[in-house]
């Protein structure tokens, strides 16, 4: 009998190895199903009310400059840039051969028009192949500012918008559904994914159910649920702490006693318990506006509970005011945190009544940090909190610290925690990466076949 079994075994082993290898190698194709809480009615990135849609904007649009993982500027639609002495006038050189979703080329005129729409106070125009930006005052941080989603290059024509991003809109049902198709002619290389289906307006519970049923491959996970979701065997990817949870007063302190009462409240809050118990370790206690990983000096702003000092400060106030604390009634965690703050305040002898209505003396707010550049993040944070814009003489850490300290000295805001952004990601999604800023990094994402 001839030994025919051995060659057959070799061939079948090789075939198995090839097929197994194909399953673990990146390949093109597939549709990524994503669900999110936000329900935007517009896809225009210059709309400032859509901070929570920045990941969508990243799929559809590009900025002239982007930030690398360390927060340094790197070329995107602009290949290079330079400033004239004084940093008031900047010249940016546009990448050639880039087209909008509708096929129109990206010209310096189109880019300038897009930036003018997002920044009406800037003077932006084209000069040959370059885009010129002139500011009223020195803007040494302009490259970082150009990385903000609102400064994406957008073509607006007849009520339609078109971007240069890796995906093009194939279906848009405002506030409900967005279908995206990969662009073969994307200037930075075609994405591995063929398409992305985004379902909007889904609460976190609905998202988790869809995820467990295999109807969604990427979902948002509340910071307080991330630990549990992970413990239950789900794959959860988190950002660095990039969302500020804070108490914001409606106005500056009117009297010295008002300021002291605010100081007593800040000292009485047990942020550590709030983080470890209520948020299940989903963040970090915050004494400053910017997280420590971003600035390196966050520890200089005390975040620890100091009840003895809070009582001491309270005892120096002859007559305290009872405050109302407003919170978002749609957020059950915010309700518990507001209750905890009221209990902590009572320990220091302060009266706080929580309310889900409007017109409260102070409000519990969550504001995402929109950039990993600390100066830009602080400026955007100040705008979001209704504080005066910080002034920077240079890009030094000393300047940044002074500006942040000045904002805190105004006693309009009491930082509580910096929260992480977390995403539940299906095991079929390969090479998924959440940036430190919470942005999706989809360039290398590909889909593996689902195991039966």
């Amino acid at each position, binding site marked *: 009998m001839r030994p025919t079994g051995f060659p057959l075994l070799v061939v079948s082993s090789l075939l198995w190895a090839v097929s197994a290898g194909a399953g673990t190698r990146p390949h093109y194709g597939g549709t990524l199903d994503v669900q999110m809480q936000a329900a935007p009615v517009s896809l225009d990135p210059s709309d400032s009310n859509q901070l929570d849609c920045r990941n969508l904007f990243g799929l559809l649009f590009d900025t002239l400059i982007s930030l690398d993982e360390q927060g340094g500027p790197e070329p995107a639609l602009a290949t290079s840039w330079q400033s004239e002495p004084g940093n008031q006038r900047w010249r940016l050189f546009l990448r050639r051969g880039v087209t909008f979703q509708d096929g129109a080329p990206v010209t310096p005129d189109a880019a300038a028009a897009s930036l003018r729409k997002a920044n009406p106070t800037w003077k932006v125009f084209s000069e040959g192949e370059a885009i010129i930006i002139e500011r009223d005052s020195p803007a040494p941080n302009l490259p970082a500012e150009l990385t903000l989603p609102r400064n994406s290059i957008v073509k607006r024509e007849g009520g339609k918008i078109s971007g240069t991003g890796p995906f093009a809109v194939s279906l848009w049902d405002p506030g409900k559904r967005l279908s995206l198709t990969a662009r073969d002619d994307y200037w930075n290389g075609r994405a591995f994914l063929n398409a992305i289906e985004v379902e909007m307006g889904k609460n976190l519970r609905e998202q988790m159910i869809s995820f467990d049923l295999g109807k969604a491959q990427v979902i948002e996970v509340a910071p307080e649920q991330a630990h549990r979701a992970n413990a239950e065997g789900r794959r959860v990817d988190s950002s660095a702490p990039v969302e500020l949870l804070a108490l914001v007063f409606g106005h500056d302190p009117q009297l010295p006693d008002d300021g002291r009462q605010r100081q007593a409240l800040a000292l009485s809050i047990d942020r550590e*318990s709030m983080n*470890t*118990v209520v948020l*299940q370790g989903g963040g970090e206690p915050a004494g400053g506006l910017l997280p420590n990983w971003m600035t390196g000096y966050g520890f200089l702003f005390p975040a620890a509970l100091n009840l003895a000092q809070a009582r001491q400060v309270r005892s120096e106030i002859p007559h305290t005011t009872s405050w109302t604390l407003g919170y978002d009634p749609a957020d059950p965690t915010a309700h*518990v945190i507001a*209750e905890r703050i*009221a*209990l902590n305040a009572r320990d220091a002898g302060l009266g706080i009544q929580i309310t889900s209505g409007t017109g409260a003396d102070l409000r519990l707010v969550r504001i995402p940090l929109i950039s990993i550049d600390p100066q830009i993040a602080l400026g955007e944070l100040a705008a979001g909190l209704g504080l005066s814009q910080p002034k920077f003489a240079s890009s030094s850490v000393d300047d940044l610290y002074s500006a942040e300290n000045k904002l805190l000295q105004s006693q309009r805001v009491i930082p509580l925690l910096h929260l992480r952004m977390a995403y539940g990601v299906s095991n079929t999604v390969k090479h998924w990466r959440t940036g430190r800023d919470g942005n999706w990094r989809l360039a290398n994402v590909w889909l593996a076949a689902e195991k039966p």
Partner: protein
Amino acid sequence: MIFRRKLLAVFALTVLVSVAAVAWSISSLTRRAFEKASEERTAALVAQFRREFNRRGEEVARRVGTIAGSEGTTRMALALSHGSPDYSAYLNEARSVADNQQLDFLEFVDGQGTIISSAQSPAKFGYKESLIPMSAIPKDAFLKQEDLPDVAALGLFAVRELTLGEKPLFVVGGRRIDKDFLASLELPAGMRAMFYQNLGVGFSPLFLIDSIGSASSSLHSMGARSGAWSCA
């Protein structure tokens, strides 16, 4: 003529006195009958209230006992016996159990009176439950004022103890005594019961409730013609 007039006057006086005497005696008898009926109805209502109160108390005690004997509570007591509790693991435990057992209030409290998990006020973890003396736990249900984040409420509570090892775990559960409780009483026609919750320092009309809600407005419109009775 004089005699006839005198006779008429005597006759009229006699008739007047007789009518007045009859009217008075009828009025008196009627009032007494109404008062008796009213007293009987009030006594029946009080008895019904007591029955309902006791029934609810037994119901609360039974549910709290069920919770104390459950597997989840046993696990919590075991964890407690091994050291200081991890509050984060139990933040929503009490609310979830309370929902299952249809209780309005539920707290898990350790031997020092520290709240481990609270259904009515989840943010109270780590704080002391000061209103119940853990050294002398009442066996029967009892009334207790519960300070909620926005308002104080009155509840019918029961406490059960679970001891595994050296550290006891107390289960404190209860149900609200409010308008729903009043609505559950079946009142005779024309009778209305109101309830004063003694939750403040002085009298407040807001704490006077009937089966619909705050009775202060309706009491106003009634001109306080119906009597209010209090318990607590």
